[in-house]
């Protein structure tokens, strides 16, 4: 009896230890730490610097057009005299907002769809054929449709991208769930009289969440890239709001005369996507059961 009470008292310590093992794995993975740290740094810079510095990225100034980088304008100015540094930061904020929104929306919907598609094979078959259909179209096509009905806005971009990325998340979650469905522990739960809710949300989820987080990270990076491409052809975030894609679009005729208009948003985009992918690769290692076992 004393044994039993001792264990009951140990309980909180124990749950902490359980989640700690994931945390320790994160701490011991350099690419997760560096990638995550840099990503946080980029996000904070894009949000805080323009706000704290009270920087203006919208007012045009014909007397300060196409100035090369200097102390006053560390990244120069663009063809209508706006400070490129400010617009790179504001563009980053827009890109990260799109990336995070798309990752959150397609992450949540894709997770639920994937889980139930695996649990109910007949519905799952239908859902997966719909996903195949959605994946056959490029995101830009959906963007044009949404712009037609809602107008050109960040919301249209996020919706269009989410539709394209839901099937990708759903696929990963479905296949991870199906692998788990074949494990005997699911049979044991059925045999104990468990319903589908407990089996899915209190058991299988624990084994699927790692693959899901990794996939969502890559969706985050991909969404930023595709948004840039959409903005570049004029179907993305509307002017005068800055985005890396539409800044690159603006710079295309000045690429030889004002290199800074191309290079800085381009480098910011490449760096951010690289950092997110590094973070995702790190997480993949952290969640790899073979490494943890």
């Amino acid at each position, binding site marked *: 009896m004393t*044994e*039993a009470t*001792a*264990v*009951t008292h*140990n*309980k909180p310590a*124990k749950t902490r*230890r*359980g989640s700690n093992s994931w945390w320790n794995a994160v701490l011991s993975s350099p690419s997760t730490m560096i990638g995550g740290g840099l990503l946080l740094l980029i996000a904070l810079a894009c949000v805080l610097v323009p706000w704290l510095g009270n920087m203006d990225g919208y007012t045009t100034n014909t007397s300060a057009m196409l100035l090369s980088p200097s102390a006053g304008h560390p990244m120069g100015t663009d063809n209508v005299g706006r400070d490129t540094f400010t617009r790179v930061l504001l563009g980053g904020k827009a890109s990260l907002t799109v990336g995070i929104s798309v990752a959150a929306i397609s992450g949540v919907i894709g997770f639920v769809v994937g889980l139930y598609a695996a649990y109910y094979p007949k519905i799952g078959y239908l859902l997966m054929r719909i996903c195949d259909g959605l994946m056959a179209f490029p995101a830009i096509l959906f963007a044009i449709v949404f712009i037609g009905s809602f107008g050109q806005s960040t919301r249209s971009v996020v919706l269009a991208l989410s539709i394209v990325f839901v099937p990708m998340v759903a696929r990963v979650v479905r296949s991870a769930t199906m692998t788990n469905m074949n*494990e*005997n*522990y699911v*049979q*044991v*739960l*059925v*045999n*104990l*009289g*468990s*319903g589908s809710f*407990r089996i899915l949300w*209190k*058991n299988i989820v*624990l*084994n699927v969440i790692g693959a899901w987080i990794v996939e969502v990270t890559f969706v985050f990076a991909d969404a930023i890239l595709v948004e840039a491409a959409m903005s570049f052809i004029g179907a993305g975030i509307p002017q005068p709001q800055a985005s890396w894609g539409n800044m690159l679009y603006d710079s295309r005729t000045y690429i030889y005369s004002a290199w800074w208009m191309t290079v800085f948003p381009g480098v910011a985009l490449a760096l951010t996507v690289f950092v997110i992918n590094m973070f995702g690769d790190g997480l993949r290692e952290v969640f790899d*059961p073979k490494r943890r*076992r």
Partner: protein
Amino acid sequence: MTNQENPILQVNSIYKDFISRGLTRKGASVFHALQNVSFELAGKQTYALVGESGSGKSTTGRIICALEKPTTGSIVFEGNNYTDYSPSLLRERIRGNIQMVFQDPFSALNPRKAVGNAIVEALEIQKIGDSRSDRLDMAVDMIERVGLSSKQIDRFPHQFSGGQLQRVNIARALVVRPKILILDESVSALDVSVQAQVLNLLQDLKEEFSLSYLFITHDLSVVRFIADRIGVLRKGELVEEGTVEQIFGNPRTDYTRNLLGSIPLPDPRRHQLMAA
């Protein structure tokens, strides 16, 4: 010794066909995993199902647990034929009364769940116990009954050996107080001293909880000490059936004699596994 008047479980001529689809329509083939298998498990008795690998032992266990439906035939628990029960009716009347300890102890536990939580979860599903600490106490008691330490309750499956996991699985199955426990090769992987310990435990628990066992094994040496009746499966058919005395004393088929011959003999000169 045998007690035929009140069978707790009746298996009535079950057939199980697995259809494997080939690439072409012609390639589809039917595999008869079980053919006309019938036996009865009397209350508080141990029925041993023996046979070579692939003879359909585990399939029989899964069908009795209603995890798979037989192609034809019926299964009756305490007078109720539950072969065609709906999932909710099964949950209400059958689940929890019949538990199975699976052959692969690792796959039968959620790799991301501490074993204590897995046992507590079994109690939650069966709505046994009033509070979490109440259930945890029961889990600790049962973990200690199967010879593990209460300190190990916080560990995850990969931190146990195969034999320890097998005992965790036995604990989880027993904690919900089933009436029938199906043990699929549960002691075969244990070394001899632990095997004896677990077999003794199973005998004690049988008395304590008035359990009936369906003991699935290929190892006849174990069966001799704990079974009341034996059924011999071969390629999905029950080729021989009877009391332990009948099967061991007077095996009627060569197949059974071969299985009996595979018992390692104490005579060092006849140490081979298969008698010639």
